[in-house]
């Protein structure tokens, strides 16, 4: 036997010169246009049959203007060919008439099927429209829906051919399921079986969330679910013998399902074959199925490979997470005697797989180095599914990419070499935020301009070309904020580089700020520019990711300096109106954050934070006798308050001046230590419902009791927790259901103080549910229960004497604006200094901050 290559006649065409091309057919286009369009030219040489002719037909088709396109060879004279193009114009749609549906629906039908005036009416258009509509009605339970499409030539003065379309829709009645009759079942009850049918339900007017309807496709899935239910209960032979559909007179149907249950099985011996990396014992521990258990095919499948959860503890993941990408695991029944099934789990481990190329695609803004340094899957590394998952998580936490759309693409798998390429796909999101506010508050106009660029590139700041609209792509953060009103002005600038030097994740940050406050002039109702309080600050910090105890830990250190400058600023807050104070402090903090995935809406993990802010203990070596000063101050204070009325006014004023002098000495360089702790946990309860308990604690202390606790750096509890304009180091702690910073401690005399607490704690429980997590806008609802308390000294401190509240809220995150939100909180307790009435309902607006 021998075979011959087939000869193709196509290439064997003869060469001709085109002598003439004519056009025939029902068309409004000129002959010249059509010939030009075809690409054929008089006088040119063509092969017939040949490529030129077929490409001419193709070109005419591609114009989407013609129908029935043919090219004929009319005659041949010597080497001259006479061609004819025959075609007709496609008709245009003139008008659509739709019958059988409500007026409002007609427009949607036209829109969905693009039946606009002027479109070319092709067979394809008619068929797809018809199928689309029929399927759509079937999906809504109108099993008997019929759609008919007719086209009628429209008479028009123009020579173009036009058609009118008539869409006749007959939805028919919605078909409901009257009854589902099971026969052959004895182990599982009817109701259990119909419960297993998730889509097809019997008619029941009480059930409003899922109406009864019959959709063939869903019904088929339901039949599979019935069998799965049996499988879960040990009946692995269960099958549907037959099922029938009976159409009743009253537009309902009855479904008859006839099944055979078979016998109940249980697991026998389970043995593993082909495993060299893991011992039988190790595999059994993951499988968690023992001899004698009711046979459950579904569970067995899940323990081998759970397709619903990528991070499940199953055999496949055991291999996948340890480099065995090409491993396959197959359970085989080897013996089923006496309804006991012996299983053999056959494992083909394959070679351990290493990453070859790891690439990233889609970073149109962000530079490679910013992304590649975050990768936990590097070339030459053993394949690990867990590392892939963690990389995705960490990439999404950068905030430069859409967290919901990070993809992985495995390419060029090579089981022989044991290598694979991995490509991450990212989609850039806008990570700059602009805050522009103007409003009327505390009697004057307040304007705020805030700019924050989260993916800044400082090295391109002088490169004009990089401004699109700002230089981006180096993962740095730059924020500017200006706020001004008649009473205060603040300017702040901050910059953060997450990988200083590019060798290690050492985050460098610096900030400079300056603020001015003026006193209120009661006579004019305006700001008194001669009475002011200036604060200037600068800070530099370094934060380092640790690898011990695990690599979610970060150690941060910062050095900060603030200079307070008072001029004629007599408010009673300080005993000296003219003076200054310096705050030089070192902060050290340790945090652990393994929340995932989306930083806006974490669904798991926890976040711990502990920090200490310390000043130099000046009093140890500056040779100032603070005990004497403290004593003197107490004496002067007695004179000043003059409870018995024995001192003159002048004496009292002098005493106050002396107190100021002493306080100036005490606060020249602030001496303090501050300890804070904060923790929150995220747990997914069901679906995307997330529970977030949190607790926090803060304590401000002094090294030297005679110097006392400073009036700066204090904790202000209550309200939305948004940092206020005051830069005296105060910490505003949110506690919804109460007015901003209203929960002030009470001193030993029962008076409410106004300069904040030196110790506080807070507990909070929040339940969150997302409405949408689309990249353009993420919205979630929340409900909360919380309580907090603040005190002025440790002696009185009772962490459970809480001010409690509860409420509801909404958060909206848009990439360009950051987080916005509103909370309605009800405070169950009274506010100190405001009588016994409970705080009641309070509304809080939240900007750019997460509770």
């Amino acid at each position, binding site marked *: 036997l021998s075979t011959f290559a087939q000869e193709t006649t196509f290439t064997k065409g003869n060469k001709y010169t085109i002598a003439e091309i004519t056009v025939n057919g029902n068309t409004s286009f000129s002959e010249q246009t059509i010939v030009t369009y075809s690409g054929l030219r008089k006088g040119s040489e063509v092969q017939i049959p040949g490529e030129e002719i077929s490409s001419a037909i193709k070109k005419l088709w591609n114009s989407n203007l013609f129908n029935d396109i043919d090219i004929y060879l009319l005659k041949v004279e010597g080497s001259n060919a006479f061609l004819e193009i025959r075609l007709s114009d496609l008709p245009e749609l003139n008008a659509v008439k739709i019958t059988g549906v409500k007026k409002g629906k007609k427009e949607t039908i036209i829109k969905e099927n693009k039946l606009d005036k002027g479109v070319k009416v092709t067979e394809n258009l008619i068929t797809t429209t018809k199928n689309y509509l029929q399927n759509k009605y079937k999906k809504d339970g109108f099993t008997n829906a019929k759609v008919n499409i007719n086209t009628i030539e429209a008479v028009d003065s123009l020579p173009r051919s036009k058609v009118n379309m008539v869409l006749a829709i007959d939805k028919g009645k919605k078909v409901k399921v009257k009854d589902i009759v099971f026969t052959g079942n004895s182990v599982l009850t009817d109701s259990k079986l119909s419960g297993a049918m998730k889509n097809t339900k019997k008619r029941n007017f009480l059930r409003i969330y899922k109406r009864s309807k019959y959709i063939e496709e869903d019904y088929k899935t339901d039949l599979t679910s019935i069998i799965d239910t049996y499988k879960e209960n040990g009946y692995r032979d269960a099958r549907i013998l037959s099922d029938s559909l009976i159409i009743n007179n009253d537009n309902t149907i009855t479904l008859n399902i006839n099944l055979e249950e078979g016998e109940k099985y249980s697991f026998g011996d389970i043995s593993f074959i082909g495993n060299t990396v893991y011992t039988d014992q190790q595999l059994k521990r993951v499988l968690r199925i023992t001899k004698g258990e009711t046979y459950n095919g579904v569970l067995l499948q899940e323990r081998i490979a759970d397709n619903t959860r990528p991070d499940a503890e199953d055999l496949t993941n055991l291999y996948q997470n340890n480099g065995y990408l090409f491993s396959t695991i197959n359970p085989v029944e080897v013996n089923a005697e006496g309804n006991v099934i012996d299983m053999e789990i056959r494992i083909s481990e394959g070679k351990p797989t290493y990453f070859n190329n790891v690439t990233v695609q889609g970073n149109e803004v962000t530079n490679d*180095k910013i992304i590649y340094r975050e990768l936990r899957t590097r070339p030459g590394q053993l394949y690990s599914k867990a590392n892939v998952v963690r990389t995705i998580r960490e990439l999404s936490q950068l905030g430069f990419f859409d967290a919901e759309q990070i993809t992985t693409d495995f390419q060029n798998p090579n089981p022989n070499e044991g290598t694979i390429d991995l490509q991450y796909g990212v989609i850039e999101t806008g990570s700059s935020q602009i805050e522009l506010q103007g409003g009327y508050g505390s009697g004057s106009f307040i304007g705020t301009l805030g700019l924050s660029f989260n993916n800044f590139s400082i090295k391109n700041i002088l490169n004009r070309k990089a401004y699109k609209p700002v230089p981006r792509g180096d993962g740095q953060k730059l924020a500017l904020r200006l706020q001004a009103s008649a009473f205060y002005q603040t300017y702040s600038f901050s910059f953060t580089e997450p990988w200083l030097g590019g060798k290690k994740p050492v985050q460098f940050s610096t900030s400079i700020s300056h603020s001015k406050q003026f006193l209120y002039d009661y006579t004019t109702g305006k700001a008194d520019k001669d009475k002011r309080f200036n604060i200037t600050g600068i800070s530099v910090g370094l934060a380092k990711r640790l690898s011990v105890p695990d690599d979610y830990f970060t150690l941060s250190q910062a050095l900060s300096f603030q200079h307070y400058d008072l001029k004629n600023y007599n408010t009673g807050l300080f005993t000296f109106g003219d003076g200054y104070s310096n705050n030089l402090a070192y902060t050290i903090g340790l945090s652990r954050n393994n929340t995932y995935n989306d930083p806006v809406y974490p669904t798991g993990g926890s976040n711990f934070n502990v920090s200490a802010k310390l000043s130099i203990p000046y009093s140890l070596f500056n040779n100032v006798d603070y005990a004497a000063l403290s004593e003197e101050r107490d004496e002067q204070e007695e004179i000043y308050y003059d409870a018995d009325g024995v001192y003159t006014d002048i004496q009292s004023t002098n005493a106050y001046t002396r107190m100021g002098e002493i306080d100036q000495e005490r606060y020249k360089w602030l001496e303090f230590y501050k300890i804070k702790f904060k923790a929150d946990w995220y747990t997914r309860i069901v679906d995307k419902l997330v529970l977030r308990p949190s607790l926090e604690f803060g304590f401000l202390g002094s090294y030297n009791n005679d110097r006392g606790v400073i009036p700066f750096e204090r904790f202000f509890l209550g309200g939305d927790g948004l940092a206020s304009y005051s830069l005296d180091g105060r910490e505003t702690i949110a506690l919804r259901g109460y007015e901003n910073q209203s929960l002030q401690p009470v001193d030993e005399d029962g008076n409410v103080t106004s300069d904040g607490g030196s110790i506080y704690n807070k507990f909070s429980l929040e339940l969150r549910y997302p409405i949408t997590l689309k990249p353009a806008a993420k919205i979630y609802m929340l409900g909360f229960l919380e309580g907090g308390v603040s005190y002025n000294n440790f002696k009185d401190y009772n962490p459970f004497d809480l001010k409690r509240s509860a409420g509801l809220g909404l958060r909206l995150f848009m990439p360009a604006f950051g987080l916005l939100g509103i909370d309605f909180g009800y405070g169950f307790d009274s506010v100190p200094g405001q009588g016994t009435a409970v705080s009641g309902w309070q509304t809080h607006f939240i900007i750019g901050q997460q509770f």
Partner: protein
Amino acid sequence: CSPYQKALNGDDIASKFTVGEDLYNKGKYLKANRLFEQIMPQYRGKPQAEKLSFLYADSYYKAKDYYLAGYQFDRFSTTYPKSVKAEEAEFLSAKSSYMLSPMYSKEQHATKDAIEKLQVFINTYPNSPYLEEANQLVKELDGKLEKKAFDIAYQYYKTVEYTRDYNAAIKSFDNFIFEFPGSKLREQALFYRLDSAYNLAINSVERKKEERLIKAKSYYLSFVNKYANSEYIDKTKDMLENLEEELKKYSTKS
């Protein structure tokens, strides 16, 4: 009322064409482009359409809208494959994609596209007057991909103290050397690969040490064979000494 405004708001397609061409010749590409855009459909199929389409595409190109320029040049060359301007159009289309290629440290999808298009052009018109420029552009684009691959590998090398992952640097320089055989950066790549392998071997756990020492030595040999006069040569000599010192322990043992 300028002739441009008149033509823009008028109905006369012939005057739109002439005014447009005039503006094009004067270098007012954006205005010309707007006029051409208006009359493109009307001239469809007419003999003047060939010239118009080219000017239309070129006005995008000159106005630096390379995305649309590329598209319009492509349309031109598929519609008029026999035109005398077809070659120029194909070159400009390829050059438009070259213009769209971003800096090397970002996504290089456009760069690969441009290389492909330029390559097709070079293959189709091997005698083109644009050939030299096309080759130049391809070279430049290849250089980008090369620099990108090198930088990524170099970052693995640089961050090794943090990642403790010498293999990432070794493997990615390996891939780089394989993929860009004629690269200017080859010397450095070979050296960094050697340096990574050397450090991995010297600091290795006992179990894998011998194998790694041997591998590092083989990287040394491939470096020295090629770059005997390299500026790194002294450093590599030191490495070799240490490697051999360590290797002695294994040879005496056996």
